[in-house]
């Protein structure tokens, strides 16, 4: 099956792909897998229940990439999918997920992606998920991703979540369990505008000795939008965890940021920093003194902040 121009454009906005890639892949269009292929080291197939995908990366396989984008163009669709990703022992893989919604109607388009990710002993994973929404009418574009990730001993994972404009409503939940000497870094970049709402709830259990977690959140709220950010670190063993949440507030938007630290071991070192504020006047003036207009200065600052 071929993707049409609209579908290809959406795919490009979430994956930066110009053409359908040749490696392991699953493209889900309007609730159905329309393209699916495995590669020698990555198997891509249906899960046992038939409710979604199962992606397995062979132990020891390195430099592997799999694309699993979701595209919604049919208005009024409520799409729900359960995906499991297993990164085999010692493997080194990149998973590129993401969801693009085009909705020109008045009906709601919604995608709920429920992911389970297991990063086996000593494996390395980079997971990126980009959300993108567009459409000319009032029809809402809703995305509710939910991820449970287990990082086994000595494994490393980096999750990057990006949502810049376009999505009306999103409620993201991320739960992580990190075993001995495992390491997790979560980076979130979020820009909401108009009446959009975005919630992100992150819970990280530092279960193992020497486990390590870092959460970096950069958020911009414009218009009358609302964001809620909750990040909890639960230190159950000697471990290190840090949450850093930086937000720029504009217009009449609101942001609520709730970092939570819970230590159950005297050697759990948990810290957080959170700051919410408008763009510093000094920064604007400085860029304007280099010849930028006020609007150009704002854009430059936001672009850098969300980079």
């Amino acid at each position, binding site marked *: 099956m071929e993707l049409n121009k609209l579908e290809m454009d959406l795919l490009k906005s979430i994956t930066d792909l110009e053409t359908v890639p040749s490696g392991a892949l699953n493209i889900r269009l309007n609730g159905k897998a329309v393209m699916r292929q495995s590669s020698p080291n990555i198997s891509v197939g249906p899960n046992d229940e038939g409710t979604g995908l199962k992606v397995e990366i062979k132990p020891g396989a390195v430099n592997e990439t799999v694309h699993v984008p979701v595209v919604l163009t049919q208005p009024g669709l409520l799409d729900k999918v359960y995906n499991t990703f297993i990164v085999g022992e010692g493997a080194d893989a990149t998973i590129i997920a993401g969801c693009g919604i085009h909705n020109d109607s008045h009906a709601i388009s919604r995608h709920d992606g429920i992911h389970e990710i297991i990063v086996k002993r000593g494996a390395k994973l980079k997971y990126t998920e980009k959300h993108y929404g567009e459409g000319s009418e009032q029809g809402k574009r809703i995305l509710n991703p939910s991820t449970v990730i287990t990082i086994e001993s000595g494994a490393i994972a980096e999750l990057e979540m990006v949502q810049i404009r376009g999505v009306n409503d999103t409620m993201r939940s991320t739960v992580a369990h990190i075993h001995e000497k495992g390491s997790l870094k979560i980076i979130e970049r979020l820009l909401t505008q108009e009446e959009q709402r975005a919630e992100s709830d992150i819970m990280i259990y530092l279960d193992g000795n020497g486990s390590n977690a870092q959460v970096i959140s950069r958020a911009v709220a414009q218009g009358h939008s609302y964001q809620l950010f909750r990040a909890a670190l639960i230190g159950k063993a000697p471990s290190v965890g840090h949450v850093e949440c930086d937000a720029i507030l504009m217009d009449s938007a609101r942001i609520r940021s709730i970092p939570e630290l819970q230590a159950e071991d005297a050697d759990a070192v948990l810290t957080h920093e959170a700051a919410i504020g408008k763009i510093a006047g000094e920064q604007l003036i*400085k860029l*304007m*003194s*280099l*010849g*930028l207009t*006020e609007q150009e200065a704002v854009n430059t600052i936001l672009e850098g*902040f969300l980079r």
Partner: protein
Amino acid sequence: MLELRNIFLQVDGESGEKVEILKNLNIDFQKGKVYAVTGPNGGGKTSIAKVIMGIYRQSQGQIYLEGEDISDLSVTERAQKGIGYAFQQPPRFKGITIQDVMSIASPGADLVRIRSFLRDVGLCPEDYLDRDLGTGLSGGEIKRIEMAQLLLRDPLISIFDEPEAGVDLWTIQKLLGLIVSRYKHNPNKTAVVITHNEKIIPICDEILVVDGGTIAAQGPPEKIWHLIKDDIECKVRNQCQGEVTYGVK
């Protein structure tokens, strides 16, 4: 080149009262000259620079750039017309690299040029181009980058606000010397260096002493430097007894 005529600047004081920071200032910055602006802390040097750049709006008076009244222009418009200011305390930016800001300072400048200006202020381009203008840089590094931007920009009038602050002692002289040598014999441009450096002030073309929001003394170094330097030193150190006249009254 740039003329300040009867400039007054008022700001809101802590308890809501008006505080006059600049009082009836008249300055005529000419082409082809390098000016040293000095005087005690709190004298009004930075305020003059900010009024010229349009960051502070004068409460009375006019500003002319090459004869054109720019008193009501925005910061952006003044920048585009050829006014440049290197901040005393430059702000930091997350996610904006040194290469980015140099490109904003001089759109279209190629990498070779950007690199050479970084080298001029003592920064190795290989180490710095991709670095973030965020919290990872020292105060001295931020000041050098600020200076490199303005040198690269090379507007009609360049105002450097205490470029030596935070920079290690060994390189201060070199940095200040760079500004003076670049602009001393440039017939079409004007440079203004706000500084306390005793080696640099005497090699500028003209000295302006700013104290109490007015020009307390002005003249070429050979005429006034020997008269004013002791007074400036005691003022800067806060050790003066009685009224200070900078040898002019």
